[in-house]
């Protein structure tokens, strides 16, 4: 499938709500309602508020405040690359 050039990247970005499905293949707990503190800029907010870009190979999530790369998820068949380099600190409530 071709990714469209009809939109600029900013016009195509999504919220990290949509990562709930892809991440459910890896984690037992839904990370999207977690509170996140950015290790780069100190910004605090819901993980779900990260900006997600789908155009890149796979999925890329960036901090909504400083745009630093938070997470990258690439899947090829049954192999997954998960880069959590910029996750920062997460606070989760367990049921």
């Amino acid at each position, binding site marked *: 499938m071709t990714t469209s050039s009809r*939109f600029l990247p900013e016009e*195509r970005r999504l919220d990290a709500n949509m990562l709930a499905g892809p991440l459910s293949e890896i984690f037992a707990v839904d990370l999207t309602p977690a509170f996140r503190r950015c290790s780069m800029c100190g910004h605090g907010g819901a993980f779900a508020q990260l900006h997600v870009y*789908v155009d890149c190979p796979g999925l890329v999530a960036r901090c909504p405040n400083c745009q630093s790369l938070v997470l990258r998820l690439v899947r090829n068949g049954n192999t997954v690359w998960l880069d959590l380099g910029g996750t920062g600190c997460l606070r989760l409530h367990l049921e």
Partner: protein
Amino acid sequence: MAGHWRSAELVGARRETDTARSLTLRMEGGWPGHRPGQHVDVRLTAEDGYTAQRSYSLSAPAEGDTIEITVQRVLEGEVSPYLVDIMEIGDRLEVRGPLGGWFVWDPASTDPVVPVGGGAGIVPLMCMVRARRKERSKALFRMLYSVRSPEERYYSGELGPPASGDGGLDVFVAYTRRVPEGAARHPGRLGIADLNTHGLPPELGPLCFVCGPTGFVEAAADALVALGHDPRKIKTERFGPTGGHP
């Protein structure tokens, strides 16, 4: 488990507009129920094994093992034209969910709510309205719905005006291209003045849910912040293209 793909059968379909329809799916192996605002991922598999998956919001509370989504046909789209025009009763696809624990409304909460939807962004908000009715919630809902023309409105029977018997629910429709006859508001984008007049004042501390195309969501969320709403009480869901990842 939410992350598991499960087979689902199309058991009902209803046209909402010329370009959108609601699909009722029966989930094999049951359904655990979901919270208003959550979505599912849908996967189609072609005969040659090629798969495509997309996210769709749940448009109504579950009835036993059946769930409902509403899909807008996107021109030259890979998945949506199939779901809107081609899929027939008895056909199957795969569903993963319910997904997402942040863009959700809690029917037990009595806090006032401002749901703001653009186009297909009304779908998860409709689930909130239906859950509100089902649970006999008294939470004040001031909904703003932006849509191109009267013909493109979803759920018009259920989403007034005039109000459909949902006490405490107000729906304001902003037409962006063409208004119905006699309408006072000229066609135009949903703006800060509409949110100011038809939403709720920030002093009431309403929870705001904003959903629709990316540009719409960002403009509406910015306008709410400009009006003085607490950014922590604004929840967004951008319906952008979800294709392009396996």
